[in-house]
């Protein structure tokens, strides 16, 4: 079973690790990697809560649309759970 997720489109200023080109894109969770201290807190020297980290798989078609040279190729990116929402969320 694969879970489809959308990367949130939020655009906060500051230190974030979610690439801008993946925001708003839909992928599937390829695997979950466990929990890690949130780097967005660590970067400011703050106490960091552990956040689930997922490896999310996107197709090039989803990421680049008509510009994709090989639309069926895939790209995996490791993204923290607080950046993800169910793909069917409105």
């Amino acid at each position: 079973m694969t879970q489809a997720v959308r990367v949130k489109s939020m655009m906060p200023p500051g230190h974030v690790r979610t690439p801008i080109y993946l925001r708003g894109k839909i992928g599937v969770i390829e695997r979950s990697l466990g929990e890690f201290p949130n780097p967005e807190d660590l970067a400011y020297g703050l106490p960091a809560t552990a956040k689930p980290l997922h490896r999310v798989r996107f197709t090039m078609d989803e990421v680049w649309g008509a510009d994709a040279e090989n639309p069926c190729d895939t790209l995996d990116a490791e993204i923290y759970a607080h950046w993800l929402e169910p793909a069917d969320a409105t």
Partner: protein
Amino acid sequence: MIDPKNPARRWHDMGGDTAGPIPEMETPNENHDFSLWEKRVDALMIIGAAKGYFTVDGLRRVLEDMGEDAFEKMTYYERWIASINQNLIEGGAYTTADLAEKMAEITARGETYGDASSPT
């Protein structure tokens, strides 16, 4: 350059931008070594992290806030020492006043690296 569509976007987050041709680099020299000050910067990073003054995330945050010019004009270890310094001040290792005093003291030792390295 600030992305007009996303002004909050930082310079490091360049994935998907048009990159142009890949520049041809010089053949790496197998005898290349880092200079002494670069090794000291590396050591300072390890010591500062081990002492709990900052994490690698803190170093990255400052590097990524530096802007495009820093990546065009500064060398790798110049960017590192700027980030380590910022993190050490934020972490409370020393104050900007402490740093100013020390820099003045070392500048007064002399122009050359050798002069400045030996305490008077």
